[in-house]
């Protein structure tokens, strides 16, 4: 070693350092951690798998979709939040939507903006629950209420013709429906808040989570779905509310995070009830 030129010695020492530290930190550390974790917290270390009728049906901490083959909600089950992970709740393709807070104009070829997605979800969930799906900045037909304003006219860009624009005029200008394929980029973008008050459909119900695997919904969204689930199952609403309560985790120590209802566990306990 000592006879080698110093630059070569440095690199040999570096190579040995990478190998030695890889064995210590990259093999022994994770394997010992795995061994201890498996011994002490077996269920959790293996993914908190839950069973129904003797078969594994999922993980208690990974959300699922409760829809039929066509993607329609199965009404006797509480529904999860929207998900951007693959086709929805795919753990092999976790993702958020990553759409920005001012993504409000639909693409010319029908790609939905985040605002339109929110409005459409709100409308559908409202109909399913028998309440109003109205929200600020949403049209009654469930798209983003956004105008592109030109000197002589305005266009409700997210309402494709032949739809009737959500307002007839804007500051004296006639409002037209959006012609598919037309480029309205030159117009001034004006989102219109409208008259809607506090929405009946909660925030988490109309937004996709960060992981796309959110196992929870808010207590408010569970509350909204409770009457439907009780009706579909022919059980008392109070019973359903009890089960919601039983599957709600509060804030740890009273201040960490937000109260959350575990959807899979709630649905499993309904099936057992």
């Amino acid at each position, binding site marked *: 070693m000592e006879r080698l030129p110093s630059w070569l010695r440095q*690199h040999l020492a570096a190579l040995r350092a990478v190998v030695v530290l890889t064995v210590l930190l990259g093999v022994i550390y994770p394997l010992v951690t795995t061994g201890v974790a498996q011994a002490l917290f077996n269920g959790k270390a293996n993914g908190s798998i839950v069973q129904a009728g003797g078969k594994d049906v999922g993980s208690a901490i990974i959300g699922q979709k409760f829809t039929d083959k066509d993607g329609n909600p199965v009404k006797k089950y509480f529904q999860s939040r929207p998900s951007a992970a693959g086709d929805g709740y795919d753990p092999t393709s976790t993702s958020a939507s990553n*759409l920005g807070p001012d993504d409000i104009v639909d693409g010319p070829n029908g790609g939905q903006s985040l605002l339109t997605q929110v409005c459409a979800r709100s409308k559908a969930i409202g109909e399913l629950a028998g309440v109003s799906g109205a929200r600020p900045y949403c049209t009654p037909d469930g798209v983003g209420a956004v105008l592109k304003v030109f000197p002589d006219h305005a266009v409700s860009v997210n309402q494709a013709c032949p739809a009737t624009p959500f307002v007839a005029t804007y500051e004296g200008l006639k409002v037209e429906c959006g012609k598919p394929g037309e480029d309205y980029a030159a117009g001034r973008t004006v989102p219109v808040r409208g008259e809607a008050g506090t929405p009946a459909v909660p925030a988490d119900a109309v937004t996709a989570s960060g992981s796309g695997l959110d196992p929870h919904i808010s207590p408010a969204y569970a509350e909204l779905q409770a009457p439907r689930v009780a009706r579909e199952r022919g059980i008392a609403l109070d019973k359903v509310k009890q089960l919601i309560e039983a599957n709600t985790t509060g804030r740890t120590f009273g*201040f960490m995070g937000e109260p959350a209802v575990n959807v899979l566990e709630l649905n499993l306990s309904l099936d057992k009830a």
Partner: protein
Amino acid sequence: MSTTAAGMIFIVSLIVALGLVHKPLGDYMYRVYTTTRHNVVERGVYRLLGVRADAEQSWGVYARSLLAFSVISILVVYGMQRLQDKLPLSLGMKPVTDHIAWNTAISFVTNTNWQAYSGESTMGYLVQMSALAVQNFVSAAVGMAVAIALVRGFARRKADTIGNFWVDLVRGSLRILLPIAFVGALVLVAGGLIQNLSGLHEVTTLTGGTQGITGGPVASQEAIKELGTNGGGFYNANSAHPFENTTNWTNWLEVFLLLVIPFALPRTFGKLVGQVKQGYAILAVMGVIALTSVLLTNVFELGGNATVPQAVGAAMEGKEVRFGVSDSATFAASTTLTSTGAVNSFHDSFTPFGGMMTMFNMMLGEVAPGGVGSGLYGMLILAVITVFVAGLMVGRTPEYLGKKIGAREIKLASLYFLVTPVLVLIGTAFAMGSAEQRASMLNSGPHGLSEVLYAFTSASNNNGSAFAGITVNTPWYDVALGLCMVFGRFLPIVLALALAGSLARQAPVPAGAGTLPTHRPQFVGMVVGVTIILVALTFLPALALGPIAEGLS
């Protein structure tokens, strides 16, 4: 309790916890880097390395050892990715594409952990735990080594050496990071994180669909990913994934872990220079900037000021129910203030000003409190620039900790500061100048510019978080961002070590009547001012075209 009140208590509880461990951990790290005794394992390691542990190195040799170690690390991580199909535990994953493997190797070795790939569909378990997670440890230990070497420069008198890189590397890894990561990993498993080596487990869901439940040694990687301010997620969804961050209290613990070493190092610094008050002054600068930033991010996110959050009623897009808006904002600010870059919510969907705060945090140069080690040396450089600016005002040769800041020192400090803005702004300009690179933006208009600006800011400052809508696994972005990561990491390191060498050679000058006291609130205020003003002057035009234009429209 209201969301805002709970969120504020969450922040206060973190401050209290960090305050409680500040002294014990800072003192412990001081002992680790100053003791002359090597334990049994370390003696064995030095023998295997063929290095003499008691031989001190000049700054040049120290820097060359560090660079040699990093180059070899990049080659090994690159090689393991390219050969992963021939290695055990590959789960049948294909070799990683060359440009992604190159980018990823650099990304983990530079403590950036920018991810141009999606963990669950690209990396087998062996690459995750024996290539990537190893770099989580050693890149953090390299950062600490440089910080300690720079502090030795201030502390030593008429010395030619600044320590031994191999000793600093091994001690940082084995005595500081490993024990905390091990305990942290087990606590996280108790919270629900997984830790196994099983492959995909297919289940039939309640409604008859199929779902593949993933496995993996996640907790062991999660703990060091936060502790070493690395941030590279086992899965694409990073710390938003329930297997990486299961409950509202694991979320608290992860924020704590990513802040704990950067906020304890000023104590180590104070002990090393023999004046703990100097450490408190540096801590105060970091604390003031960090707290302001965390609170502002909370204000912007809870305010939800943009069209979609207004329509929704809360800025919940890209956030998990169990964490809520406030704790997600706190995580986002913490991860960008340190050079972590882990995310528990997706910054691309944040409100314009909330998203801007995450970018601004990185533009500060990752100094408040910054990455493990890199935060301290970055902050000390800013302190040097501050005494220089103050010295100019009164026409005196500036001094810091008894060392004269002469022409050579201030040149090194200024060059240090210039590296990242040059990389960020030139990189962004190149990307925006080409239609092909602009096509990678998911969002259009000012938000699209923000995505590109964020990417170059994140890579150059070795943060690694993203406005994740942007498509960056193209050869152009992989190479460009890879270069930003390499230069953004190693140019400042070499300059900091050169500064350490030049300071160590000096004999300290005794403090006189005209010496600026550097442990008083006045100095703290000046460093905060210099930091903010330098960043604002450099980046305001770019921010004005991106998030500010979006937020005010």
